[in-house]
């Protein structure tokens, strides 16, 4: 196990490894997204209460789920960077933050659009949507903090501390927003309720969640490779790689 972490930590090894990985992961992500979208839009039946607007679930729920998972990935990378001072963990954290923020924004936009036909207003203070909004602020806080520091390795450590504090707070935020919502609003239909989803809708949803996880992995790896290429532009191993190909 330890050699894996050691190898993961060395930029040349990771650069080659991620190069091979991205080569097949990117096409896989694209086709997963296509199949999931076609399945969700064309084949799956509409919801008997909400009608066809329910088809937005196939992008709203996956982006929300992966966005939240992304924050925990960032927190894990932050912890590794704080404890073991592995430079790769800083690069990972810097690569995940914008992707997570983008996915959270997608979840918010699709949620707002979905709210229009269902509740007649573009913005609805539903528990799930409000928690998503707060998650977006947490992400933006990390991105802003990273840009505010000149010395980038100090920035990574500061973001690691902020992310860990944020991770401790996320469950509390989600719970408090749920209580806040249920207190002020009689429990009308839960937006993305855990109500049993009919299998014909569940499978495309699971496929899209998988597709979004692949999308997350691919974009993070691409961000990391771009970052590594710039950080190590003077390194000999990279120059050989460039001249070699």
């Amino acid at each position, binding site marked *: 196990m330890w050699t894996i972490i050691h190898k993961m930590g060395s930029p040349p090894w990771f650069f080659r490894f991620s190069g091979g990985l991205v080569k097949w992961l990117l096409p896989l992500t694209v086709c997963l997204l296509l199949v999931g979208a076609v399945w969700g839009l064309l084949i799956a039946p509409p919801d008997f209460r909400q009608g066809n607007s329910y088809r937005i679930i196939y992008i709203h729920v996956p982006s929300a789920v992966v966005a939240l998972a992304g924050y925990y990935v960032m927190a894990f990378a932050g912890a590794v960077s*704080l404890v073991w001072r592995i430079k790769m963990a800083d690069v990972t954290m810097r690569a995940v933050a914008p992707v997570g923020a983008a996915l959270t924004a997608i979840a918010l936009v699709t949620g707002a659009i979905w709210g229009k036909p269902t509740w007649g207003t573009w913005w609805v203070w539903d528990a799930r949507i409000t928690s998503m909004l*707060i*998650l977006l*602020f*947490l992400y*933006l*806080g990390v991105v*802003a*903090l990273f840009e*505010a*520091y*000149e*010395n980038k390795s*100090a920035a990574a*450590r*500061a973001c690691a*501390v*902020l992310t*860990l*504090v*944020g991770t*401790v*707070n996320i469950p*509390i*935020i989600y*719970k*408090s*927003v749920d*209580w*806040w919502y249920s*207190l002020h609003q009689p429990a009308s239909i839960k937006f993305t309720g855990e109500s049993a989803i009919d299998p014909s809708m569940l499978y495309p949803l699971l496929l899209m969640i998988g597709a979004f996880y692949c999308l997350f992995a691919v974009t993070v790896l691409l961000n990391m490779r771009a970052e590594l290429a710039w950080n190590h532009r003077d390194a000999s191993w990279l120059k050989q790689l460039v001249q070699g190909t």
Partner: protein
Amino acid sequence: MPASESNLTLHGAFARQFSRHARAIIRSPAEVANPLLFFFMVITLFPLGLGPDPQRLAEMAPGILWVVALLSSLMVSGKLFASDYEDGSLEQLAIAPFPLAVLALGEVSAYWLATGFLLALASPIFALMLGLPATGIFTLMVSLLLGTTCLTLIGAVGSALTVSIRRGGMLLSLLIIPLNVPVLIFGTTAVSEAVMGGNATSWLALMGALALGSLAVMPVAIGAALRVSLDQ
């Protein structure tokens, strides 16, 4: 020759750090008056904005009081470590033979006494201004006492993270407002439950748990954040 063997215990260092900042704050009364004045002025804005109708104000009083408490703690925490960072005592704090988290906690508690505690004591005045029913005032004070503890601690983490950045003020609020949301929700709900005669104790218990949790977790984060800021 060095005076004598080191005879300073941990709580001695904590008390020393606390008294150092308590004295510095007492010496500059503006530091104490500002948050209260800010609270006072912003509270008067709401009736101007929402109309003088007492019934409506009373209904929204818990929310208004708590949002303004959050904003005033935001304003204060920006200056928490700024003066120490400039005059170099933050460096000495990091080198002291005691855990940085405990020393920073000493400093933060001095700040809390000067801002959060006083805010809680003065809150009945602001509550009466907005016409908050008498049943809610005691709960408001208790919730502010517990809430400002969390707000000051989280503000201290934000301040420690942004102390070495030149114009860190705006960034500070972006960092800590999301973290302050649970405190705001619990505080407002506790007071409105008390006003409606329901039992606010469960919400106050939640806030107590949040306060103790922050007391345990946040100083470690403050210490780590200060070391990062000093490492520039």
